Structures are given as C-alpha cells and as structure tokens.
C-alpha cells in the first residue's frame, strides 16, 4: 500500500482513514470536531500546493510586467511621446489585474470564521469579476483613445511609432500568455500520474462495473486534488475490503459501491484535462485581451503609416477588436454570474438528480432541493427528503448521501429526513 504513496501528504491521508467501513459511512456525515468539510487536511494540502504554484506563476508575471513597464516609461519620457506612455499605462493595468488575482488567490486560503462559515473561497470569484470589469473598462478607454486620435486632425499621430510601440506590447503580452497558460502540461503530469498507476491496478482486477457513462465532465481545478486523495482511499479499501468484505455483510454493498464509484471516477478523470485556476485564467484573459488589442492597434498604426488619410479605419479596427476582446470574456463572465447567483452548476443535472432520489425505495418526496457552488468546483447540496413510516432514517440517509456522492461527486451534502 505504501509503495504507491510517493509524497508525504498522501501517507498522512491514508493514516487518517483507518477504519474504512465505519468512517466512510459515518465520518463523511459528521465533522471530526473542528475540522469540517472544507478544511479537511486531504484537501488543504493539495489546495495549498496548487495555490502556491499559481501564485508563483503570477508573481513572475507581475515582475516581468513591472520591468517592461519601467522600460516603456523611461523610453516614453525620453522620447516625449504620449503613445508610449499610454502603452505603459496599459501595462500598469495588467499589473493591477495580476495584483487582484494574487490577492484573491492568497485570500482564498484564509481559514473559515464563524461569520464566514464557508471560508473565503468566494473571494476568487469576486476577484475574477473585478478583473473582468477592468478588461471592459480598458476596452472602453481604448475606443475612446481611437476617437481622440480621429479628432486630433493636426496629424500628430505617427503611424510608425504606433506600430512599433504596439508591436513591443504584443511581444510582452505573448510572453506572459505563454507563462500563464502553461498550466495544462504541469497539472497533467502531476495529478494524473498517480491516477494512471492506480487505475491499472484496478483494471487488472476487473471486479467493478464502470460508471463511464456519467455526464461527469468534471473540469474543475481541484480535480487532481480529488484524484489524488480518492485514489489512495480506494486503494486502501481494496486491500482491506478483501478481508472485511466477508466479515461485514451489512456494509458490503456500501463499501463496494464506494470502491466502485471511486475507481470509476479515477478512471473517468484520467481522460480529462486539468483546468486552470479561475484567477490565473482571468489574468490570462486579461493578457489575451491586451494582445488582441495590440494587434488591432498595430493594424491601425500600419494603415495610418501607409495612408495617413484613412484615419477612420483605425477607429473601425479598434472597435472591431474591442468587441472581440469582450467576446472572449463572456464565457468566464457567465460562469462567474452563475456562481454568484447560487444557481445549479452546469455539470450537474438537477432534474436527473431529483428523479434519481425519488426513484430510491423508501423515498416518497424530495423538496427544497438546492444545489449551488462556492466556487468553480466546490459544490454543495441541501434538500428535504420525505420517507415512508417504516424506513430506517439512518439507513436512508446513508443511501441518499452515498448516491449523491457516487453519481454526482458532491461531497458537501445536507439532507433533512422527514417522515410522512
């Protein structure tokens, strides 16, 4: 068992789940004293590691940005050109966006307080919202500048300078886009390496039905967190279950289904890409927007350089590219809005869940079902379930929680069992 644990935190996780049959059934429902739900040591170490990686990336990007910005400011003051200073101001806005993302990343790791009972994960979402508002604001400012350029008939605008400055800006932005967008390769190797090796073990045994057909397109950024921790648990189950399967018959179905769905999840997750942290993604969007705008300004500058009379084309170009930039932000804005409105996350089909719960035997009705997300990837569920008079409340609770965990991978669940 220990041979598969290649890093210290995973060894600690295994030791925590010493008694799988009881603790899996009961421990997930209760909090073990102060450590509840969002502050499991399972998740925090992986969370913290991922957060540190993202922060490191952003800090490097900020430092690079500041260096380039000082270069541009010095050059602009020396050459006494407003265009260069304006571009330096845009780089300053980049720095502001990175600062917001860094702050959000850092703040999301704060401990939960009684006032903020869910922790501070929402700060990520708010930070991303502020970042996107900044992007929209900047697009508006650029359009305004294009109009000003149009109005200044005096011809102070030099196409060549515009072209050169925006080319430099584009170069800087491309470097940073590459830096920030580099997450895919990294995350892949890290989390899924483990997933792969474990998965082979399970496949070779071949005693699980595979829930491969789940609509589990679960691309949330804590994904390899789950992959890591669940893998270890499953492995532990696997060894102990061979002994305890025969002993504890009452727990056998639950155990087996736990092992089933855990392994199925690992196998299902292996095929998916790691997703960027939402703050790194919003910083990346910011940089992407800037590079698109730089391309637009380059084209405008080239046109003015070539044919100074066609100034209106500059304005049209800027408008078109601003609209393109706004389109890139729409998808993220939609995700943010959905989280802030406490709506059911996209990857979970609420109707199917409700029907699945209702189809369970002993369940009469399900009402007040609410599924919502703290941040992209952390989903919670609360509902009231009415059961028949003769059903055992505790057993029904276990069944319902197990079903929800297994099928939909929602681990923070509160179910109120009522009798008719």
């Amino acid at each position: 068992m220990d041979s598969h644990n290649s890093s210290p935190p995973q060894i600690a996780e295994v030791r925590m789940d010493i008694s799988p049959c009881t603790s899996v059934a009961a421990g997930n429902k209760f909090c073990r004293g102060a450590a509840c739900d969002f502050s499991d040591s399972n998740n925090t170490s992986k969370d913290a590691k991922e957060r540190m990686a993202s922060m490191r990336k952003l800090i490097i990007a900020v430092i690079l940005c500041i260096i380039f910005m000082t270069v541009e400011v010095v050059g602009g003051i020396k050459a006494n050109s407003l265009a260069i200073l304006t571009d330096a101001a845009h780089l300053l806005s980049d720095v502001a966006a990175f600062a917001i993302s860094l702050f959000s990343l850092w703040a999301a790791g704060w401990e939960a307080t009684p006032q903020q009972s869910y922790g501070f994960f929402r700060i990520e979402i708010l930070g991303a919202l502020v970042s996107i508002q900044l992007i929209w604001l900047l697009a508006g400012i650029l359009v305004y500048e294009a109009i000003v350029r149009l109005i200044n008939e005096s011809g102070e605008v030099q196409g060549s300078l515009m072209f050169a400055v925006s080319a430099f800006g584009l170069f800087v932005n491309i470097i940073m886009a590459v830096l920030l967008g580099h997450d895919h390769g990294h995350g892949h190797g890290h989390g899924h390496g483990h997933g792969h090796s474990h998965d082979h073990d399970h496949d070779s045994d071949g005693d699980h039905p595979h829930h491969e057909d789940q609509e589990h397109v679960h691309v949330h950024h804590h994904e390899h967190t789950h992959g890591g921790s669940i893998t270890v648990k499953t492995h532990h189950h696997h060894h102990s279950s061979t002994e305890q399967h025969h002993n504890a018959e009452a727990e056998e179905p639950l155990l087996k289904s736990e092992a089933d769905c855990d392994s199925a999840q690992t196998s299902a997750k292996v095929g998916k890409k790691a997703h960027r942290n939402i703050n790194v993604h919003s910083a990346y969007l910011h940089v992407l927007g800037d590079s698109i705008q730089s391309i637009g300004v380059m084209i405008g500058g080239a046109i003015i350089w070539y044919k100074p009379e066609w100034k209106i084309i500059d304005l049209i170009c800027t408008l078109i590219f601003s609209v393109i930039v706004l389109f890139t932000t729409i998808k993220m804005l939609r995700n943010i809005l959905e989280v802030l409105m406490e709506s059911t996350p996209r990857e979970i089909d609420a109707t199917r869940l409700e029907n699945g719960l209702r189809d369970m035997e002993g369940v009469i009705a399900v009402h007040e079902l609410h599924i919502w997300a703290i941040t992209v990837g952390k989903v919670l569920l609360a509902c009231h379930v009415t059961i028949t008079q003769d059903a055992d409340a505790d057993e029904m609770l276990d069944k319902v929680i197990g079903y929800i965990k297994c099928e939909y991978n929602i681990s923070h669940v509160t179910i109120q069992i009522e009798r008719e």
Partner: protein
Amino acid sequence: MVMDPPKPWNPNYGVVGSGDRRLAFSRQLSSSSTPRLARSDSSISMPPPLLPAGTTFRWLATRPMRRLVLLIALNVAYSATELAIGLFTGRVGLVSDAFHLTFGCGLLTFSLFAMAASRTKPDNVYTYGYKRLEVLAAFTNALFLLFLSFSLAVEALHAFMQDESEHKHYLIVSAVTNLLVNLLGVWFFRSYARVNIVYRKPEDMNYHSVCLHVLADSVRSAGLILASWFLSLGVENAEVLCLGIVSVAVFMLVLPLFKATGNILLQIAPGNVPPSAFTKCCRQISACEDVSEVCQGRFWELVPGHAVGSLAIRVKNGGHYQYVLEHVHGLYQDLGIQDLTVQTDEESDTI
C-alpha cells in the same frame, strides 16, 4: 416595532425627527387609490402595479423602475447629444464626458434589468430565484463608483503635473446640464440618499446603489463647476484641489455599500443576527435531551431579508428526532432564518 393605527400620511416619517434614522423605506404613492397602509417595518410594500403584469410592461412595473427609465432616457439623450457635438466640433473634453456618461448609463440599465428580472419565479437551474441580481447590480454600481473615484484621483494627479488651466466654457455648460440631470435623479431616489442604510429587502440595495451613482455624478459635476469658478478667481491649483476632494468624497460615499454587497456575495452570516444569538441557539439545541452534538452550522444571506442555513445534529440512538427537527426549526425561525436544512444522524453503536 409596534404597528401604529392608520395615521394620515406623514411626509417626514423616517427622514427627520423619527426615532431610527437609518431605516430605508419607500414612499407610498400619495395619489394612488389604494388605502394608506399603516407604517410598519415588516410590511412596507409597493403599491400594486398600475399596468397589467405582461412581459412588455415588466420594465415599468413599479414606481422606482419608471423613474429609473426616465433617468436613463435623459442620460442617453444627453450623452448622445454631447458625443455628436464633440465629434463635429472636435472637442475632446465633450467626447470624454460623453463616454463617461455612457458607461454610467450602461450600469443604470443593468440595475433596471436586475429590477425587472428579479421578479421571476425560481426555476430548475436558479433554485433560489433571481433576487441575487439586485445585489449584483448594486455591487457592480459600487465597483464602478470606486473606479470613478480612482480615475478622478488620477485626473487630479494629471492636472497637478501638467499645470494647465484653460477655461473651457463648453465644459462648464455640459457640467451644469449634467448636474441638473443628476440632481433630478437624486430627488427621485431621495429616500436612499444616505451613506449607511439598513437593508431590509433586496431592492433596497439596488435603489441605494442607483442613488449613490447619481449622487456621485452630481458631486463630480459640482466639483468641476467649482474648479473652473475658482480658476476664474485666480486660485492656484484649484482643479487639483477640487478633483482630489471629489475623489475622496465619492470613495467615502461608496465604501459602505461596496462592503455590504461584497459581504452578501461572499456569503457572510446574516447581518441582522448577532453572533451571540447563534451560539445561544447551539447551546439550546445541545441542551435537548436527545441531542449529543451539534456541528456544521452554516448560515448565509441570499439577499437582505432572506437567510438560509444548514445544520448537522447528532442524535442519540432511538431519539425522537422528528421532535428535535421541529424544535430546531422553531428556534431558528425566531432568529429570522426561514430556510433551514437540518441533518439528523443517529449515533451508531459500531463506532
């Protein structure tokens, strides 16, 4: 608060001379045909919509919405005129002012949209309904005002470094018109023209944010007019001073609203319930004879006035957990938390 018997409508209720100055309220239509409702905190309701509630008339359903539509229309007309004049005569100052107004209009339109959409019933995807949109609109407004204050500070810095003080007469005309339009807006929403308000309904936040928006805009226009007046008097650095003061003023105006809306979006515990009440409730529950442990009490506010919570309780084996459920629900309803989900787990003997 005690419900008073129906009194003749007192125009000063809640504004000057009443006990609690921080209460937000909405004015009753003095010309409406509905009987005057008694003033009470819990049943301040808008008069029924004068128009049928079809979807086309949703944007004109309540009085504040009609006023907001008027305000937006005025602003749009004004900024379009300014933009046109600025483009044709080549004056950059007018164009920048028009842009600023357009951003503001966009935000007010989003507020209006939030007011219209928040009446929609909850559905499958948005299980809590659409009331959060009002809080979101208020947050966006507050954020924009913060950006505005920051940009005014930058402008002050710019004026300080550039040290140019030309008299731009057309700008003064535009500032005066802007001031008049915004003062009209402040008058429409005058009951929310306060910095610290106790929010009782989701609409309170939205109306407050709209009022602060027009208030900040009018402060800015007033600052510009003052600055050019001081400049004409020969005061040095008048522009820097005025812009700086306006920037600080807008910042201070907006900060409480920003914090309040941000907190709701961050799912802070309900503000109207003191933390000691929660601990007291926990103790009362643990004191129940069937309960062995209370944990994972999480409470948050969906919108001001609607609190949601979830709780997990460990019950002793064979306890009457139905009774415990009702008891717990009753306890929390006294605190004002209507939506509560309580999970009762029996202690299993095998642990």
